[in-house]
């Protein structure tokens, strides 16, 4: 009898969970995001940014008179989870549009889903260049994020300004690491043919012990190291590299938003100062009225003191979408695609344009050396500059 | 001669369990091995049936050297056995237990797509009847009463249609009445089918009532062998079992 009772209660709990979700006439947007595991630190603010845009739009009466509903789902770290979650949302929740994904492989996976399901997909974070290149490019995929090419190339532009000749690279052994490094090296060699790549280290994704790699890199005696380690991977690397005198011995250029506030605060005292790194956004720059306004809104929405540099990713992607719907005057997929192509919007970093030819926003990044400043309790990128992507895209 | 054991030896981690045991058993004989705990009876059984490898010696069954054969091959040559502890297929029914052994014996174990249900019904039933389990045909064997499980164990051993049976304490743990019944049953089956029997047993009344020949094992060595009366009066055996008795 007791067993029966337990069973009934379990069933009731389950049923309580599965009360049907009501969705009348709303424009439903699915937002699968990396919300559990190591990348969640970026996925979460990105989702918050998307929610903020939705709130702003809905408060202003919605789009085409319809409210927007945002369904945020956890898709962990893996592309297969992203695929599954996206399909579930498409088929079960009847989403009209798909935005989301964090890792490169998730971007590619979601792009593939959008192609098969014939639904518009905007990638807010995934950067892998080949997503928007032949043969993988198709009409349903868009990217508001910067791409691995612009990221690698802008790093090359900066690296070329230093007198470094011997360069080593370190990156996680998977598609993001390969594609950014693959963009960095030829671009740098293009600008500065005398550069020599002395070593390439490929620790596995999620490596917890970088020390063997650190020693090997040092043994190759580079002038500088280019890294594509991101998030916790970078922090772990930095913590372990520091005591080898790593950052004193070699210059360090880090892609992968090692300079974003989340990473810098995550690293705490162990953040190496002086390394050149990038971020999607910085809350202190540019110090203009519209940017201050944006930062203020994010702070208020997320209830924090310092706006996350990742909120913009979700925000911008959703803004592209809503503006396109507005422009198209309908939610019809083909028309929204047409509207997205060439669309220019105002967003967290100013104006961005979605190129018609490869469906990518011409988006740059903030770069600068990590520096301690008196104004904030953590280091920031200073002097920081926005490297636009216009010349780096093709 | 159906079974010939030559100079069998086995030790575990330096402990000598069997120290050079040799004996022969004629076809149709009813033999038993007795001896105190740890004398090596079960070890001898396990070596003969291929469960354990031997350090030294040779076992010939029905004219064939089986010293190095794996257990399943020895079984297929016609040497069936039962175990001291209950060793049945506890999630299967009584019928299925025996049927599994029958169909293996009949070489059907590797057929993948014929339905097992109707196979060898009669033959299995026959064995069920002969071990007195026909009333429990469809009972799951795990929860069955102990005595029945022991009978089932015997049934499984018989189902391979062996030429010779090795029974390791077939009545261990049974009450007096059960023991008597079981022993009579074994005797009957063995004589009817003309099998050769070798068994170990603690209950001396059983041993002496059924055996034609008794072998006594002590500390891994065979110290006596012969018909019951001879063994009963053997000095060495007396000594092992009751010491120099004060009651005469």
């Amino acid at each position, binding site marked *: 009898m007791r*067993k029966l009772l*337990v*069973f009934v209660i*379990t069933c009731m709990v389950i049923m309580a*969970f*599965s009360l049907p*979700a009501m969705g009348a006439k709303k424009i439903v947007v699915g937002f699968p995001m990396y*919300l*559990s595991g190591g990348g969640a630190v970026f996925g979460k603010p990105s989702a918050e940014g998307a929610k903020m845009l939705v709130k702003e739009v809905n408060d202003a009466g919605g789009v085409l008179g319809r409210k927007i509903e945002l369904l945020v*789902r*956890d898709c962990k770290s*893996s*592309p*297969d*989870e992203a*695929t599954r979650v996206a*399909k*579930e949302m498409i*088929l*079960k929740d009847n989403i009209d549009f798909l935005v989301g994904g964090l890792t490169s*492989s998730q971007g*590619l*996976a979601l792009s*593939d889903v959008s192609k*098969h399901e014939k639904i518009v997909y905007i990638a807010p974070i995934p950067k892998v260049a080949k997503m928007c290149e032949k043969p*993988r490019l198709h009409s349903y995929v868009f990217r508001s994020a910067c791409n691995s090419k612009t990221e690698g190339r802008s790093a090359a532009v900066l690296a070329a300004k230093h007198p470094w000749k011997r360069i080593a690279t370190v990156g996680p*052994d*998977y598609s993001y690491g390969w594609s950014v490094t693959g963009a960095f090296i030829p671009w740098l060699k293009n600008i500065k043919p005398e550069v020599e790549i002395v070593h390439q280290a490929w620790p596995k*994704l999620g490596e917890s012990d970088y020390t063997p790699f650190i020693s090997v890199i040092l043994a190759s005696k580079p002038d500088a190291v280019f890294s594509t380690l991101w998030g916790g991977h970078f922090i772990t690397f930095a913590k372990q590299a520091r005591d080898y005198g790593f950052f004193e011995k070699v210059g360090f250029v880090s892609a992968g938003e090692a300079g974003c506030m989340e990473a810098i605060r995550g690293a705490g005292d162990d953040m190496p100062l002086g390394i050149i790194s990038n971020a999607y956004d910085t809350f202190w720059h540019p110090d203009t009225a519209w940017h201050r306004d944006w930062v203020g809104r994010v702070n208020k929405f997320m209830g924090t003191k310092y706006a996350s540099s990742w909120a913009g990713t979700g925000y911008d992607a959703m803004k592209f979408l809503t503006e396109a719907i507005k422009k198209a005057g309908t939610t019809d997929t083909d028309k929204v695609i047409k509207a997205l192509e060439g669309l220019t919007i105002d967003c967290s970093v100013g104006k961005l344009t979605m190129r018609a030819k490869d469906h990518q926003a011409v988006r740059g990044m903030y770069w600068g050396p990590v520096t301690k400043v008196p104004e904030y309790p953590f280091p920031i990128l200073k002097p920081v500059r926005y490297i636009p992507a216009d010349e780096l895209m093709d | 001669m159906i079974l010939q054991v030559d100079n069998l030896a086995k030790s575990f981690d330096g402990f000598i369990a069997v120290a050079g045991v040799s004996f022969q058993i004629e076809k149709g004989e009813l033999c038993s091995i007795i001896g105190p705990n740890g004398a090596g009876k079960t070890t001898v059984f396990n070596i003969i*049936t291929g*469960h354990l490898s031997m350090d030294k010696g040779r076992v010939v069954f029905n004219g064939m050297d089986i010293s190095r054969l*794996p*257990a*399943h*091959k020895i*079984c297929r040559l016609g040497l069936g*056995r039962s175990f001291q502890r209950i*060793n*049945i*297929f*506890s*999630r*299967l029914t009584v019928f*299925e*237990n025996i049927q*599994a052994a029958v*169909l*293996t014996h009949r070489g*059907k*174990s590797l*057929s*993948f*797509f*014929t*339905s*097992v*249900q109707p196979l060898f019904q009669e033959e299995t039933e026959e064995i069920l009847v002969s071990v007195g389990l026909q009333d429990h045909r469809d009972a799951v064997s795990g929860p069955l009463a102990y005595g029945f499980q022991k009978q089932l164990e015997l049934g*499984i051993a018989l*189902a*391979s249609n062996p030429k010779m049976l090795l029974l390791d304490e077939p009545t261990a743990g049974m009450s007096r009445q059960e023991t008597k019944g079981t022993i009579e049953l074994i005797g009957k089956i063995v004589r009817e089918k003309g099998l050769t029997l070798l068994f170990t047993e603690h209950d001396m009344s059983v041993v002496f009532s059924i055996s034609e020949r008794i072998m006594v094992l002590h500390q891994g060595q065979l110290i006596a062998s012969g018909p019951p009366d001879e063994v009963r009066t053997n000095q060495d055996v007396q000594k092992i079992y009751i010491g120099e008795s004060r009651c005469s």
Partner: protein
Amino acid sequence: MSRQNWILIAILVLMGLIPVTGSRYYVFLLTDILIFGLFALSLNLLLGYTGLVSFGHAAYFGIGCYACGLLIKKAGLSFGIAFAATGFFGAAAALIIGFFCVRLTRIYFALLTLAFSQIVWAIVFKWNSLTGGDTGIYDINFPKFLDSRTKYFYFTLAVVSISVLILRKIVNSPFGRILMTIRDNPERTEFIGINVKLFQLLAFIISGFFSAISGGLFAVFNHSIFPDFCYWPVSAEVLIMTILGGMYSFFGPLVGAAVLLYLRMEVTSYTVYWPFILGTILILLLFFFPGGIVGFIENQIKRWRSSK
């Protein structure tokens, strides 16, 4: 025909009617359930019928995925040929791996299957030029004759039904009976004249074959495949499906797959704490419903019958 078979046919017909409702979602969900149900059933041939705890079954599912995907995308074979070959890749891998694994017992068996599956995963992950590394193989399209989700559902239903039929035939065959004797008591089985290791290996191969079939079905259903399908949490998940449904009943794993996938789909709509809920379900299961869902229901029926 027995009553049980009539019920099964009724269920089959009902499932066949699902697309008529017009719900894309149920067609999708059901296809998913059928595929993972077959995967769980094939695992259960080892677990529930042979008594071997494989903790690395994701390997054969993954091999199925990649065999099918690679044969279509890289070798340019037609779907029919690629899919037909898929099972044999799984069986071949199971033959090689199983050959070593069946020598071990219990926890060592589980650990060795785990270790092998991790090797398969690492190879798939690292062999970028062939497998596409972490980004996997994408754009595996439905074949021409199955160019819609509904058609693919019917195809899946057919393949899974046939596989289930075969598996059911096998567990009800003399061979299946011997597997059960091995599960209950490998030692005794040896002494009714069975080469236990050989039978365990055969079960391993059959299980690998059908796991790979389910993987092949999944590759096309999902259109893209990733190394994570060979990763150990997938092995754990399919084990949970099997236990949840009940490993001692033939259809238990299928029921487990259905319940787990349905629950996951519902729960993840409301919370990101799905692992917590899954863990709690598992703990409740272990302490209160050791026979799984089907085992529990069977017990209730038995009790109800005996009380009548």
